C-alpha cells in the first residue's frame, strides 16, 4: 500500500519550500519531494540574492503582481523565520545621456505596478552615494524597497518551519510520472516508489515543463534554462555596499554589481539560453561578458580579488500573460487547470521568483480555497522558526558564553568565515539534515571565503563521517556520485 498525502509538492526550491510552509498552516498532510540530496539545489541556489522592488516586470503581468506583493511580505517573513534580510534599496544606473530616458520608463512602470518609494537621482547625488561608480553616470533610479537576502537561509528556514509543523520532506526522490484516475491525479511515481495524493503541486523549476507535460498540460510550454554566471570578490579587498543595476535590455535586468549579506561584492549575471537543464558550468566567454558588463558600472574592480565563481540556471519559460490586451510570452504560470483535477501548476518562475515566492504561496492557497478545498487552520501551528547560533556574528562575550555552554562551538573549522564544529554538527542534525558538504556550506557559509575550503574540507568530511556513522569514503560533496575520496591508501603489509 503506497503512502498517501493530501498534498505532494514536487521540487524543493524556494517556491516549493515556501508553499510547504504556507500549507503547513492548515490541516491535511503535506509531502515535499526533491530529486537532489538537499533542498535549494536549482534556480534558488545560484542567483543574485535580491528582493526586487518591482519596477522591472511589465505592468499587468502576473510577474509584476507577484513581485510587488511578494516584496511587501519579506519583513514579516524574515522576522518569523529568523533569516537575515536587509532593505538596502537598489539603484538602476544610467551611464551616459543616452540611457537616461530608460530611467523614466522604469519609473512609470514602477508606479503602474504599485511600487512605492522610487525616485530618480541626479548624477551628483549618485556619485556621493557610490564613490566607485563610473564617472560617466548620468543619473539613477533609486528604489528604497529593494533588498538583499541569502536565498539558502530563506529556503532552509521556510522548509524547517514546515517540517516542524508536520510537513514531510523526502530528498533524493525524483518525480517520474503521475498516477491518473481518468483525468484526476491520484498520485506520483518516483524513483523511491509510488505516493498517493489528492493534490500534486508542480514547483519543479527548470523541470516544470517536463512535469506539466506528464499531466498532459500545456504541451507547447517549454523552459529554456537561461544560464547566468557570477564572480564573487574578497570582502577584505573590494567593498561595494550598494545594489547597482544597469539599465535593462531585451536580455533582462543586465549585469549587476551588488553585495551579499556576507559583505562580498558580487558581479553578474549574463543570460545565455542553453539546452542542458543540468549544465551549471561557467565558461570563458561568459565570464568575460560579466567582467565587461560590471566594469561599465564600476570601472575600478580588479579580477585579482575574485574568490569564487559560479553559474545558475533560471527557468525561462514561454507562458503567455493572461491579462487581455497584453502581448507578453514570458509570464509566470500559476494555475489550477480545468483539464486535469488535483493539480496545481506552476511554471516559468524565473526572476523575480525569489521575491515572489511568499506571494505565490499565498496565491496557491487562495486558489485552492476557490477550488473548494476547505483548508482548516491547524491548532498549534507555530509560525516561528528559531535561528541557530552563528559564532561569526557574535561579540567576544557572546562567543565566550556559547563556548562555555557547548565546547564544540570553540573549535573553529573554517578559518575565513569562522564557522565552528558546533554549528556544523547542529546543521547535520537540523530539521532538514545537512548530509553533504555543500549542504553544510550553504547553511553556514563555510568554505565560501578566500581559501575556498583549503583548510576546512578534510575536517568537515571527518565530522560528517563521524556524525553520520559512515566511512569518509562515503561522504559526498552534493549527493551520490560526488564522493570526495576514492579509496584508502595502500595498507602496510605484514
Amino acid at each position, binding site marked *: 500500500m503506497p503512502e498517501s498525502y493530501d498534498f505532494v509538492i514536487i521540487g524543493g526550491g524556494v517556491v516549493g519550500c515556501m508553499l510547504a510552509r504556507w500549507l503547513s498552516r492548515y490541516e491535511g498532510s503535506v509531502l515535499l519531494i526533491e530529486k537532489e540530496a538537499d533542498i535549494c539545489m536549482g534556480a534558488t541556489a545560484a542567483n543574485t540574492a535580491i528582493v526586487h522592488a518591482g519596477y522591472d516586470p511589465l505592468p499587468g503581468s502576473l510577474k509584476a503582481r507577484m513581485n510587488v506583493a511578494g516584496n511587501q511580505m519579506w519583513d514579516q517573513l524574515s522576522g518569523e523565520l529568523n533569516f537575515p534580510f536587509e532593505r538596502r534599496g537598489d539603484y538602476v544606473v544610467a551611464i551616459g545621456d543616452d540611457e537616461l530616458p530608460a530611467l523614466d520608463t522604469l519609473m512609470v512602470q514602477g508606479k503602474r505596478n504599485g511600487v512605492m518609494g522610487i525616485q530618480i537621482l541626479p548624477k551628483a547625488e549618485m556619485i556621493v552615494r557610490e564613490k566607485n561608480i563610473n564617472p560617466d553616470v548620468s543619473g539613477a533610479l533609486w528604489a528604497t524597497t529593494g533588498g538583499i537576502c541569502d536565498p539558502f537561509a530563506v529556503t532552509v528556514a521556510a522548509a524547517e518551519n514546515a517540517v516542524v509543523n508536520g510537513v514531510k520532506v523526502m530528498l533524493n526522490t525524483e518525480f517520474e510520472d503521475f498516477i491518473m484516475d481518468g483525468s484526476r491525479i491520484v498520485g506520483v511515481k518516483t524513483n523511491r516508489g509510488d505516493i498517493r495524493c489528492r493534490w500534486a503541486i508542480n514547483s519543479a523549476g527548470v523541470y516544470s515543463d517536463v512535469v506539466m507535460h506528464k499531466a498532459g498540460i500545456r504541451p507547447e510550454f517549454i523552459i529554456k534554462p537561461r544560464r547566468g554566471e557570477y564572480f564573487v570578490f574578497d570582502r577584505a579587498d573590494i567593498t561595494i555596499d550598494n545594489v547597482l543595476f544597469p539599465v535593462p535590455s531585451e536580455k533582462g535586468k543586465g549585469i549587476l554589481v551588488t553585495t551579499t549579506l556576507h559583505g562580498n561584492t558580487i558581479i553578474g549575471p549574463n543570460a545565455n539560453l542553453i539546452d542542458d537543464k543540468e549544465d551549471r558550468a561557467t565558461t*570563458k566567454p561568459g565570464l568575460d561578458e560579466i567582467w565587461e558588463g560590471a566594469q561599465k558600472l564600476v570601472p575600478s574592480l580588479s579580477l585579482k580579488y575574485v574568490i569564487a565563481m559560479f553559474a545558475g540556471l533560471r527557468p525561462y519559460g514561454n507562458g503567455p500573460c493572461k491579462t487581455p490586451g497584453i502581448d507578453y510570452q514570458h509570464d509566470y504560470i500559476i494555475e489550477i487547470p480545468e483539464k486535469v483535477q488535483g493539480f496545481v501548476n506552476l511554471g516559468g518562475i524565473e526572476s523575480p521568483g525569489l521575491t515572489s515566492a511568499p506571494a505565490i504561496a499565498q496565491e496557491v492557497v487562495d486558489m485552492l480555497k476557490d477550488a473548494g478545498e476547505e483548508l482548516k487552520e491547524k491548532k498549534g501551528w507555530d509560525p516561528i522558526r528559531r535561528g541557530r547560533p552563528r559564532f561569526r556574528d557574535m561579540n567576544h562575550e557572546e*562567543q565566550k558564553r556559547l563556548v562555555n555552554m557547548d565546547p564544540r562551538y570553540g573549535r573553529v573549522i573554517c578559518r575565513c568565515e569562522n564557522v565552528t564544529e558546533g554549528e556544523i554538527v547542529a546543521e547535520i542534525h537540523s530539521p532538514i539534515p545537512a548530509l553533504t558538504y555543500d549542504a553544510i556550506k550553504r547553511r553556514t557559509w563555510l568554505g565560501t571565503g578566500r581559501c575556498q575550503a583549503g583548510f576546512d*574540507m578534510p575536517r568537515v568530511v571527518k565530522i560528517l563521517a563521524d556524525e553520520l556513522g559512515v566511512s569518509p569514503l562515503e561522504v559526498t560533496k552534493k549527493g551520490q556520485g560526488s564522493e570526495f575520496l576514492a579509496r584508502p*591508501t595502500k595498507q602496510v603489509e605484514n
Partner: protein
Amino acid sequence: MTLKNVYDVVVIGSGPGGLAAAVAAKKEGAQDVLIIERDVELGGILLQCIHNGFGLETFKEDLPGPTYAERFIKEAQAIGVEVLLDTMVLDITPQRKIYAASKRNGFIEIESRSIVLAMGCRERTRPQIRIPGSRPAGVYSAGTAQRWVNVEGYMPGNRVVILGSGDIGMIMARRLTFEGAKVERVLEVMDYLTGLTRNYVQCLLDFDIPLQLRHTVKRVIGNTHVEAIEAVQVDAKWNVVPGSEEVIPCDTLLLSVGLIPENELSRKAGVILDPITGGPVVDDNFQTNVHGIFAAGNVVHVYDLVDWVTEAGYEAGKCAAAHAIEVRRKEHHLIPLIAGDNVRYIVPHMLDKRNLEGNEIRLQMRVSKPVEQPVWLEVHDKNNLITRRAERYVRPGEMVTVVLKPDHFAEVSKADSLTIDMVLR
C-alpha cells in the same frame, strides 16, 4: 594546563617559523612563551610533508618534514615553551590582546608583551586563476590532497591531472604514483618550471610523468564528479592556441598554483601588508608597523626552503623576547590601583614610581552601592594600611577623593599594587 593572563611572547602557529621563534624567544630570556596552534599537534604543514629535503642548511642533513619539526618540538618542550593545541586565534588587537577559542580550553583571552605572527601561507584556489567549467567533487588543492593521503590515509582519486609545477604539485605527483594512481600530466602555464629543479628530476622525470609548459586547464568537465579536464596550449600572452584543445579523462584535478601568506589576523591587528608579497611590512627585527607584533616565515613572504624560514623565525623570536623584556622593565615602574570592596573604579588606574616625590596625589573613585553610615576608604598594599579617609556615608552619585601625601610615598613605592576597600567605621 593553567594559562597565565599575560605572556612575554605569544607565537601564533607552530610550523617551522613559529617553532623557531618560540625556541629563540625562550632562549633569549623571555619568561613566559606560549605557542597557539590550530591543529592537534605541533609542526604545521611540515607534518604532512613526509618527503625528504628538509634541513640541508640547518642540520646538514636531508630530513623528512615531521623529523625536521620534531627536533624543534623537543627543544621547545625541554626549555619550557607552553603550548595550546587545537586552538584557533580569533582576533588580535593592536594592544596585543589575543582572543582564541578551543574545544578543549574554551574561550581564551590573554595579553602578551610581544606577539610573533607565524600563520604560514595558504594555497591559491581555482577561482583565483579562474578555471571555468562545472563545480564537481574532485578538484582539490595539492596541499589538501597531501593531507588526505599522508595524514588521513585516503586517496582522492586514481587518475590525476596536476595544474601547476609548484613543489607541492610535483611532490604529490610522485606520492600519488607511489600509491598506485596514474598521474596523467603536470600542466604549467608559464614557459618555465615554478618549483625546484631537484623536485622536477626526482618527482617527475624519474617517474616518467609528463610536464607540459605553456599549458593550462581550459575547463573542468563533469557535473557531480570530475570526469575529465580540457587542456590547452597557450601563447606568451596566455591566449589559447587554436586547435590545441585536448580532453584528458581523469577523476581528480590537483592545483599547485602558488601560495599566499595567510594574514587574516594580521589585518585585524592593524598590520600593514605589502601588496606584492601579501605579507606584513617588516623591519630588520621582523617587527611590523604595530609595536610589539613581529612576523616570521611564510606569513611574511613565501620561502623556497624551510631552512630560511627557521632562520627568520629565530630572528623574530629573539627580537620579540628583547621587546618583551623592555616592556617588562617599563611595567616595573608602574603600581596598579585595584578597586576593592564596594569601589567601582579608581582614577588614575596606576601610579608611576618615578613621580613619587614632591606633590600629593589625588585618587578619585566612585563606590558601587550606597552605604548610609560612616565608613572608611582604606588604601593598602598586600600587608599594610597606608592611609584612609573617613566619610559619613557614600553614594554612587558622589565621587570620593583619597589623597596620598608625600609622607606615604616611601611605603607606596615598595608596593606591587595598591587596593582601595570601603569598610564600615
